[in-house]
């Protein structure tokens, strides 16, 4: 452990936590240059995905392990496809439940993985900070594929990529994020990244879903009413609402949430002509997003999925591509 006395306390809130270019742990501190480099590469990779033969030799002979401590289908498949299309050997390692429950520590898991000499570890974990823990103990690169309620940087990157493909330069654009901001790693990563790219981020949610010290901690603002903002948004990002949050009294029930914060056709019709609607998936049809909107012309949800693979190929390329032997 670094002696905490030796670090400037004031610097801790504005330090680069991204880990880039060795790792991708966070969008906090990721530079515009790095993001632009990723987007350029992602555009190329997307073309590869649309070809009949979808494989590049770039990462041939390299090993990527997808370590998923939390269940995930789409993110894991996206990473798996990305790795395979880059030519890497991709292994999936599922460890549901915490390693602690099996008597093994995360430190043990890290040492086990490291002994297999991977080139890249993609980690999804239920606990915030777990990717940092692994990055400190592994000799390879680490990509955070979602850690607890903390961050999901590849999702934010593919969101920003999708946004810029649809509405152009994000500088000065207004992005409204609707949902459980307090428990959303997608929101947290997006807030950092969109801020870096010059966009204004306004989060809409009941106060129960806004974390403590929100506007001091993160470069975004909070507004409790979606209708007030709908006419000025360049993009609206709907977050999946988790029903288990009802048990914690973060909201009373689905219907009420849907009425106050759902994206329905009436609201969608009031958006500016160019505005798009995003969702990281999987969607709760009829809760945070109405089926007619999810399938409508403004929704770019499937573009996000396609771009996700391309962007993850770009990440693999930039993290590993330059260091091949």
């Amino acid at each position, binding site marked *: *452990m*670094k002696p905490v006395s030796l670090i400037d306390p004031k610097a*801790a*809130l504005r330090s680069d936590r991204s880990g880039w270019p060795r790792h991708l742990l966070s969008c906090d501190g990721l530079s515009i240059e790095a993001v632009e480099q990723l987007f350029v590469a992602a555009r190329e990779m997307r073309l590869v995905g649309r070809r009949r033969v979808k494989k590049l030799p770039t990462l041939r002979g390299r090993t990527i392990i997808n370590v998923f401590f939390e269940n995930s289908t789409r993110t894991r498949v996206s990473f798996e496809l990305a790795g395979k299309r880059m030519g890497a050997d991709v292994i999936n390692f599922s460890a549901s439940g915490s390693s602690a429950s099996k008597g093994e520590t995360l430190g043990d898991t890290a040492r086990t993985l490291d002994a297999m000499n991977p080139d890249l570890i993609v980690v999804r974990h239920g606990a*915030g900070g777990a990717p940092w*823990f692994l990055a400190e103990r592994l000799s390879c690169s680490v990509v955070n594929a979602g850690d607890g309620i903390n961050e999901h940087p590849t999702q934010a990157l593919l969101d920003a990529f999708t946004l810029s493909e649809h509405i152009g330069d994000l500088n000065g654009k207004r992005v409204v994020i609707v949902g459980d901001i307090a428990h959303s790693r997608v929101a947290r990563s997006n807030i950092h990244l969109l801020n870096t790219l010059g966009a204004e981020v306004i989060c809409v949610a009941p106060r129960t879903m806004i974390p403590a010290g929100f506007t001091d*901690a993160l470069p975004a603002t909070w507004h409790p009413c979606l209708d007030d903002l709908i006419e000025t948004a360049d993009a609206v990002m709907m977050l999946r609402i988790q029903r288990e949050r009802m048990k914690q009294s973060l909201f009373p029930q689905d219907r009420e949430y849907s009425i106050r914060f759902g994206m329905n056709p009436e609201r969608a019709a009031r958006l500016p002509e160019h505005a798009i609607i995003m969702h990281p998936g999987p969607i709760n049809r009829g809760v945070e997003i109405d089926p007619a909107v999810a399938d409508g012309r403004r929704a770019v949800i499937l573009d996000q999925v396609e771009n996700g693979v391309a962007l993850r190929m770009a990440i693999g390329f930039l993290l590993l591509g330059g260091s091949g032997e």
Partner: protein
Amino acid sequence: MSDNPMQDQWIVGGHVIDPAQGIDRPMDVQLNGAKIVALHEPGNAPKAACIIDASGLIVAPGLIDIHVHFREPGQEYKEDLLTGSQAAAAGGFTTVVCMPNTDPAVDRREVVSLLRRRSDEIGLCDVHVCGAISRGLQGERLADLGEMAAAGAVAFSDDGMPVMDAGLLRRALEYASDLNRPLMLHEEDFGLTGGGCMHEGQVSTRAGLEGMPVSGESAMIARDLEILDDFGGRLHICHVSTEAGLRLLREARNRGLNVSCEVTPHHLFLTDLAVLQSEYHSHTKMNPPLRPQRHVDALRAGLADGSIQAIATDHAPHSDTEKDHDFSCSSFGVTGLETSLGLTLKLVDEGVISRRRAIELLTSGPASVIGWDDRGSLQSGMRADLVLIDPTIEWVVDPSEGRSRSVNTPFVGWKLRGRPVMTLLEGKAVYQLHTTPTNAAPLVGSKPRES
């Protein structure tokens, strides 16, 4: 005294600090056997006496830590009474109070007796026991308070857990007051803190971790002070960490309630930013959690103005099995016995408190919380428990050199000034810096278990 078969010992040339007697000047200390005989003006020791030269040293009552976890019985791989006692002696502590959250819990007389007997056998530190308030720490029914008190339990606590049932707390308070024992409370409302692993605020939001808000502590303190006011008894609030909690305690004492409180060294030096600074290192995880600077400032002011009666470490050893995890899966707690004095003296260097007050918070302050009148001072007839401190030694915290079986300190690498050079328990040297004790119980290696 000359008819006493035991030879007198004199500690000469030192600077005695005995806050309970208001002494803070060069004096010699005369001991006989396990007791203090008297303090003398310097230069009066008889030539034939057995002399301990304390030139350049502070001579103080042996330090008292009323909140430690020695993990025995049941979790000896983290610490046991031997390694805990060794760490205590090395930290200048001659008396500690162990919390009952062991396995099995200290909720009956047999466990109290076992630990008291072990303490005597080891003989490096007077290890006292705080019994459980509730059977099995389940928070449902009273543990055997009376039998445990008879076996030597000095207080009762469900530490690690709050007493969520206010009715149970009321009964425990009433029952314990008949036994003249305080309750030591870990104040936390699970409804507010559940799932949290650090202080809830700007930093937890930035770090993406679930938080434990200030009111998670202060609301319980408020509740329990009202219960104390209604039913009487004696309360001690463990490890106060919030400005609001301290304000409530100060007000309660001002209106005459019989309540005391302690604060830990880590809550006086670290803030919640340490979690981010250390990149989620588990050694910055404890309960109550590290708080923002304004709480640290408030606690420091509380030391100075007398609102806080004791510094206690909440020494909570954990092995890698509990700590080599990501932040939220790791156990709460850090060690503290070997860094407590150095950190408390750092408060003196930083102008927060006087040196006399620093010693008070580690001796007579905690003694008064428990109600001891045989220790915490150097008055005639008291236990000859003393610590000789070299206030000028500069050292760097390196847990691998420590006596505790665990190494989970957040202060690794800190430069501290001042450390014990000799600890005497009932007149016997149980610790000497850079040497092993000679006339105490045998030490079975300084670190029996490799980490």
